[in-house]
């Protein structure tokens, strides 16, 4: 094992440390990186972002939520507007890890950790989130879907994820998942549905059924065109077609957790139910 531990105290220092030590791994909450260490993955140095105050914070400004990359899942849940039971963020974070994990796992780790099993990512995709990225050449904003990757994330060398942003005033939303147990495990498959009321559009994201979490545009088109926006209802036929299109968008693998058929079936059922439940709850 080689490497050193760097603990920058500000964003500028963090970017410099990341640039000067390309082999050192960025550590946010450590819930993935240190678990890998315990599994025997050799350490090549760490740049801990824990001391970087600019990356923390959860705030609502000018109608946009801004979740700092180092905001923990517990930080998100501590904000009752962001994480009420009626928001997809609230529903998803309740099922993310355990209380111990939520005190350490971060927004940035969910986005940059890679894979298709991250609990928060489908929700952020359905909320049409953008990410703020900072690097040696300056900062930029890009769609969340542009940075997701099966392993790690697609940032330019030297860049650090700073924050995730999305509009606060959308509409009713749902997050559903299936997993080996009800909590403290990764979802086998998940769906996030958001009604974008201002734009009369439905957004659907799927987790666990493609190399990264994905949007399902064909299903979104069926949903957006099929629901009755004036009377706020959806027919069983539209909900079924929405679910079928979600399954069509899925390209899952079979592994030791579940078969591809199971995952495809699960997103079909969950997407259909999520759309119906949004409208049923709306009327109740």
């Amino acid at each position, binding site marked *: 094992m080689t*490497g050193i*531990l760097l603990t920058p105290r500000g964003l500028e220092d963090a970017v410099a440390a990341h640039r000067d030590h390309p082999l050192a791994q960025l550590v946010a909450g*450590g819930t993935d990186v240190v678990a890998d260490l315990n*599994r025997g993955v050799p350490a090549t140095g760490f740049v801990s972002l824990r001391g970087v105050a600019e990356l923390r914070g959860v705030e609502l400004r000018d109608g946009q939520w801004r979740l700092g990359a180092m905001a923990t899942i517990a930080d998100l849940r501590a904000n009752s507007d962001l994480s009420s039971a009626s928001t997809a963020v609230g529903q998803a974070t309740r099922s993310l890890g355990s*209380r111990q*994990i939520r005190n350490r796992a971060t927004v940035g780790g969910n986005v940059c950790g890679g894979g298709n099993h991250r609990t928060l990512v489908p929700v952020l995709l359905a909320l049409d989130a953008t990410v703020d990225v900072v690097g040696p050449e300056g900062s930029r904003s890009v769609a969340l879907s542009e940075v997701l990757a099966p392993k790690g994330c697609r940032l330019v060398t030297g860049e650090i994820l700073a924050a995730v942003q999305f509009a606060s005033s959308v509409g009713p939303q749902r997050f559903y998942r299936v997993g080996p*147990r009800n909590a403290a495990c990764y979802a086998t498959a998940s769906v996030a549905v958001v009604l974008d009321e201002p734009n009369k559009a439905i957004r659907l994201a799927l987790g666990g059924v493609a190399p990264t979490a994905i949007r399902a545009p064909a299903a979104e088109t069926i949903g957006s065109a099929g629901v009755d926006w004036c009377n706020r209802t959806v027919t069983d036929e539209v909900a079924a077609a929405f679910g079928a299109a979600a399954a069509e968008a899925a390209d899952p693998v079979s592994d030791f957790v579940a078969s591809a058929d199971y995952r495809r079936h699960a997103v079909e059922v969950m997407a259909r139910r999520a759309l119906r439940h949004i409208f049923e709850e709306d009327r109740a």
Partner: protein
Amino acid sequence: MSDSERVTYTLTVNGADRRVEDAWYFETLLEVLRNRLGLTGTKFACGTGQCGACTVHIDGLPVNACLELAALDEGRQITTIEGYSPSDGSLTPLQEAIVTCVDVQCGYCVPGMVMSAAALVAEQPGASAEDVREGLCGNLCRCTAYGGFVEAVRQVAADGSAS
């Protein structure tokens, strides 16, 4: 910031400053507590944050010590099961309730379970059995004594006296 693979730092554990000399920068808090500081009440089991046997409090929050880089915890208040338990050898009301309600066979999960439950009761006084089941989802008991743990913690949450 360190400039070598070996680091020296001070941890505040159970109210006392403990010097950690010449440790590897990648040592976890669990390894340092057990192997360097002799605090073996905190247990190692999964090493991946699933089982909660290593639960400690850092600045009052329950976390998995196996997922903490110890060198990053300088300046934080770390409480282990040794610090939570009364120094005169008596038990807290939570520990008493667990002794009364829970039939464990091996006991390996108990320190982590106690630390997790103590934080839960402080956070959610009056927690229902359902709240306790959800709140303790990060602690596994392979003897499956969950019913007893839930009942013990619920009773203490209702009484509002974990420690």
